[in-house]
């Protein structure tokens, strides 16, 4: 009888130990889930920031590629071309 009780005590001690280990594991997994959720949220935030930056870059490229009528007339390259063209016209006249 005493031996049976001792065996049961041992079994209970093992179960207690197992519960303790599982509790520890759960705590670690919970902490991991929190950190991974933070990573996922941050990734989503950065993805949206990246998309917004890409949109801005696209707008900048478009602005540089198509500067508009007024700006292309008064562009320094256009003016340089005009002056050079005028000068060459005078020389070859």
């Amino acid at each position, binding site marked *: 009888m005493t031996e049976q009780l001792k*065996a049961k005590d*041992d*079994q209970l*001690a*093992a*179960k207690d*130990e*197992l519960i303790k*280990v*599982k509790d*520890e*594991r759960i705590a*670690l*997994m919970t*902490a*991991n889930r929190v*950190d*991974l959720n*933070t*990573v996922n949220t*941050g*990734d989503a*935030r*950065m993805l949206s*920031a*990246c998309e917004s*930056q890409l949109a*801005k*870059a696209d707008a*900048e490229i478009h*602005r540089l590629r198509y500067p508009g009528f*007024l*700006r292309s007339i*008064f562009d*320094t390259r256009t*003016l340089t071309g005009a002056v050079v063209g005028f000068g060459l016209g005078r020389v070859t006249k």
Partner: protein
Amino acid sequence: MITWLLKQLDNIPQPYRTIVRWGALVVAIVAILALFNQVRACGYDKARRDYEDQSKAWATERAILLGRVAERDKQIEQLQAKEAAIIAADKAGKKLDDDIANKIDAVTKAAAEESISTDAPTDCWIRGDRVCAKLRSLQPPITIDCDAYKRKVCAP
């Protein structure tokens, strides 16, 4: 200054005065447009720099978080191996005295190290197999019943 310039302009004979006036107008328009362009470009550059700073800060924070997760994964592996050992000890009816507990700790630590060094996200059963195989190869003071352990840990 402007009055002086206008006075100087009046001293220039025609038709050069008109040419100079038109030239000044063109230069003024070019300067205004260039300034406007510069302001817009500065706005874009600033936004870009802000984004890059934010991106770098997040990369650092992300690395720290993932490092912590990896560290905890290692501990989880260790606990998983410990669980296997406890279940086996319980099944064998062996009391976990200090000597056995120390041996189990050493064995589970080694098993976790081994498991983490080759780790990739894997299925629970495969991980269980790996843990058991490692435990068995390290010859712990108890017999590990792998199937029972995997059933217990991986059962849905």
